[in-house]
């Protein structure tokens, strides 16, 4: 930390501390409003975990706010006769309960819905956001009558449209929570600061990276060993517990809650705060929250004043009666739209350099010249060598590492893969070739768990992979790359590698926040491993670059390095040389050979470059229309008439003869 930063922080703390006293001295009475705004900012920070970190658009976040507020309200109020009400400790006991209840409901609501993706998830959360207030309102007066027998008569579970009133306030000896807003200000300031600290630590941990990986590309994250369901559920639960916190402070500060305070508009305002400041940026969310509150409370009113004044002096009658405060929601909508169109990263978000799409000739030439040097055996990170070797020695050499029998998968009656057998011996490179649409990628997907096969068996080291989620398969030791590169574009190169190491790390939520020595050590080791791996593939200098800013060839290598970071024993490469120039292709071919030679990795390779696949494969399987039409050594396959007919073409034979 530089001296300037220390000074800045000290000034900030001093200003935050002095503010209520300045307010008091000036008699401007803004502490209440500021404290309320801070509660909303805390909510927005919770929403940021869900939307900004994990990329799950939650349109019903106000429902969790309501749940937190009602948990506090019902526990700490005489309305329903809570036994917890009326003690000096009531508030302090109810707070953690509210956070836990919200988190649990977050899990209960989240568990079934998180299997749903993207836009659908947004709609489901919206539906929950609509249902919860209805339920709270209606559950204040339940009567159930079946056949004239009153089973339940006017049962009150929530206070109904009356809401809950009063809600007990916190008690600390000598602190006037009853009458003075200042203690509230400090209480929420402390809680807010603690939340920020925790969130900051979570972001820079194994969990934070998993969230961001899910946000960037859920499928790829799954295939790199991140369990998407668990990760998303955790984001949901943590986000919910933050809103539970904020909700219970809201209820206790207000001393009364009504079901009308938690409607869709509140969710949207919170979303505005997050989007305005910058999704995923803590500083941004705070800035966004402050700006929106300021805009709402001050600027609109003052602007109305100014516009009316201008209208009077210019003699424009229409302007003299303008009330801009009525335009508030219009401006919020406009704000959301404009932010997305012109500054989607938000006010405080990282400005992202546009990915290089077009590369002019000179640059391309330079890129070719600067192509990474051939990876050398001695630069293989020792840890990787050890891990892969330990996997091998345990099972002894010789047996097949993967054995797929009669694998079948069809989509809507069309067989993409039918009755395919494929065996990969340990330390072997096996090529999988065939025309486009032959089912090669589908076969990859079946092995890595992305599409469950309809029938057949897939054994990895003798154990079935059928029915396992992709991330579980990665944990077993099977890693893959994708035909079209699927890096986590907005994460750094090193972070991409660290996501690969996710399934080999153990840090939990508590560990990520508290950071005991074991977690610190694990994190340091992971980074060290990651850097070594980057050095091995020749990307050491770009470690802190965003993945999307890398040139194409480097992205390919990064994707392979990321797969290696999962410490696999079997590597599935889907057209790794696609789009590469001859030099790059050559380097990569060498590289794959090196992995097998030095590490003993087994590789399954989909490839269209015949010289590559024929050059390094031990055996080749050929697919056509989903069926295996040939299997054998490269030489056998090349001469197989069926293969020539279906894939290589007649010209190839002639070419072969010439060679």
């Amino acid at each position: 930390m530089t001296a300037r930063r220390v000074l800045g922080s000290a000034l900030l703390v001093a200003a935050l501390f002095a503010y209520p006293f300045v307010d008091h001295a000036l008699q401007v009475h803004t502490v209440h409003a500021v404290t309320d705004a801070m509660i909303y900012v805390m909510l927005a920070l919770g929403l940021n975990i869900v939307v900004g970190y994990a990329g799950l658009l939650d349109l019903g976040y106000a429902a969790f706010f309501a749940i937190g507020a009602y948990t506090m309200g019902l526990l700490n109020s005489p309305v329903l006769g809570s036994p917890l009400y009326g003690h000096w400790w009531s508030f302090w006991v109810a707070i953690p309960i509210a956070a836990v209840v919200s988190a649990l409901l977050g899990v209960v609501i989240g568990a079934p819905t998180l299997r749903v993706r993207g836009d659908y998830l947004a709609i489901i959360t919206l539906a929950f956001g609509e249902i919860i207030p209805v339920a709270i309102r209606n559950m204040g007066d339940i009567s159930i009558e079946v056949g004239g027998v009153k089973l339940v008569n006017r049962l009150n579970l929530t206070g109904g449209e009356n809401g809950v009133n009063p809600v007990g306030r916190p008690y600390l000896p000598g602190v006037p929570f009853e009458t003075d807003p200042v203690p509230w200000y400090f209480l929420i300031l402390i809680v807010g600061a603690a939340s920020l600290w925790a969130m900051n630590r979570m972001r820079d941990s194994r969990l934070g990276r998993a969230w961001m990986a899910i946000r960037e590309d859920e499928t790829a994250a799954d295939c790199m060993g991140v369990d998407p369901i668990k990760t998303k559920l955790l984001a949901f639960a943590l986000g919910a517990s933050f809103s539970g916190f904020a909700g219970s402070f809201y209820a206790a500060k207000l001393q009364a809650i009504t079901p009308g305070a938690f409607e869709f508009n509140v969710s949207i305002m919170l979303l505005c705060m997050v989007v305005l400041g910058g999704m995923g940026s803590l500083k941004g969310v705070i800035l966004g929250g402050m700006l929106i509150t300021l805009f709402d409370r001050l600027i609109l009113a003052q602007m109305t004043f100014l516009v009316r004044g201008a209208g009077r002096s210019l003699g424009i009658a229409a302007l003299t009666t303008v009330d801009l405060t009525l335009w508030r929601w219009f401006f919020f909508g406009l704000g959301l739209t404009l932010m997305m169109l012109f500054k989607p990263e938000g006010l405080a978000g990282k400005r992202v350099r546009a990915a290089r799409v077009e590369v002019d000739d000179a640059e391309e030439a330079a890129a070719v010249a600067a192509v990474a040097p051939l990876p050398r055996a001695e630069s293989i990170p020792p840890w990787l060598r050890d891990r892969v070797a330990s996997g091998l020695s345990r099972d002894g050499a010789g047996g097949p590492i993967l054995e797929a029998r009669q694998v079948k998968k069809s989509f809507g009656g069309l067989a993409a893969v039918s009755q395919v057998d494929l065996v990969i011996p340990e330390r072997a490179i096996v090529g999988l070739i065939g025309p486009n649409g032959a089912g090669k990628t589908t076969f990859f997907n079946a092995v890595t768990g992305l599409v469950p096969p309809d029938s057949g068996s897939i054994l990895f080291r003798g154990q079935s992979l059928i029915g396992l989620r992709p991330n579980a398969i990665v944990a077993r030791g099977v890693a893959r790359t994708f035909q079209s590169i699927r890096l986590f574009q907005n994460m750094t190169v090193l972070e991409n590698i660290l996501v690969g190491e996710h399934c080999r790390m153990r840090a939990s939520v508590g560990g990520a926040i508290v950071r005991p020595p074991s977690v610190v050590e694990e994190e340091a080791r992971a980074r060290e491993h990651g850097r070594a791996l980057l050095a091995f593939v020749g990307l050491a200098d770009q470690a802190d670059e965003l993945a999307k800013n890398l040139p194409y060839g480097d992205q390919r290598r990064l994707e392979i390095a990321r797969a290696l970071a999962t410490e696999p024993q079997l590597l599935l490469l889907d057209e790794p040389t696609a789009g590469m120039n001859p030099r790059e292709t050559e380097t990569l071919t060498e590289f794959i050979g090196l992995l097998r030679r030095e590490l003993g990795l087994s590789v399954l390779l989909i490839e269209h470059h015949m010289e590559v696949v024929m050059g390094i494969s031990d055996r080749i399987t050929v697919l056509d229309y989903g069926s295996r039409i040939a299997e054998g050594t490269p030489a056998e396959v090349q001469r197989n008439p069926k293969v020539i007919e279906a894939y290589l073409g007649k010209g190839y034979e002639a070419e072969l003869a010439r060679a």
Partner: protein
Amino acid sequence: MRRLKWLGIAGMAVLVTMLAGPADAQQCPKGKLRIYTSWPMQGAMIPEGTGMKNGVDMAVAEAGGVVAGHCLEVVNLDDASPQTGKWDGAVEAENANRAVGDALAIAYIGTYNSGAAKVSIPITNRAHMAQITPANTYPGLTKTKGAAPGEPGIYRPMGFVNYFRIVPADDIQGAVGAKWAKQRGAKKIFIIHDQELYGKGIADVFDATAKKIGLQIVGNEGIDFKQPDQKPVLTKARAAGADLIYMGGVVDTGAPIVIRQMKDLGMVAARNVRFLGPDGLLEEEVLKGATCDAAMQTDMHITFASLPFEKLKGIGASTYENYKKKYSKEPTAYALYSVEAGRIAIEGIKRAAPQLDKAKDIKEKRDAVRQAILNIKNYDGLNGKWSFDENGDSTLETMSGFKVVKADNPIGCKFEFETILE
């Protein structure tokens, strides 16, 4: 640099707000006192909110702006939330806290919505400050009848009464409504409410009273007033054979839709189905939305927790005339009660004048005014002489019934006084 710019803007905004505060020019021998008001001033509530503000201003103007040597200043606050445009507990709490935190604040007039009063009464109570409402009618704010468990004690943390209302509570209006329904020949009643505090509260009182006096309640349904289609609920009422629809609600919670669609479903007076509602619906906006045709076909009747302005006598009549003269328009439903609320506050300050001079701090001053108001008896008010009872409620129980008649105005009809209800 960008950050500096933002800070600059924020700083400017704060500065502007502070400078915009009212400047004090008037000289008063005993200094200044402030009366705070709080109710919604947004959306559909703008006319009523403005009318109520006019009322308080008028009361202060009558006193020449000075009471017992104190200059009076009115601070109008809006308790509608920026987020929803409707009244909001957080904003109301902020308003009340702002009032009690002001060392010159002597009394609080408000609120319009009973739900908001639930939030602010405990705050003003702790500060010994009198709160006078021109409009809250939820019974539990002052009395145990028609209240939830614990009410009204929970609103009085200091144990004394500081909240006064000059309009009769809903337990009276709901009951009067049920009796009137019986008088007018209704037998089977279907109740609809908007699931809000006022609407459901008054509907429940109506329900209970109606059953007691031998009417048959064939249904009591809360509706989602945001749906433009209430035909299924009305069909349910029709299927139950209802000859009267009673709707608890206010102007913007679905009553126009209900009345309009009653007509569409043939639920009209000609087929022996009628509409009755409480004074939350006594607004021209309801007629506009429902159309006069539908309102008259359903023989729409409304109860009102007071006398109609035209029927007022004495002080009431002169207040009505003066209001019309001063603002050159008809008072809104609660505008004149705001005049009365303002007058009560001023009366309290006047009566407490000796104690005000002796008081050590603002809390004692507020308490003196609070006690003075509680002791007001036989006050010559809009509806004749009345007193505050021990709960802070007006002893008046006079109500009136209105019906819709054809009129020569842009809408084509209006509410007309029909009868006095006891």
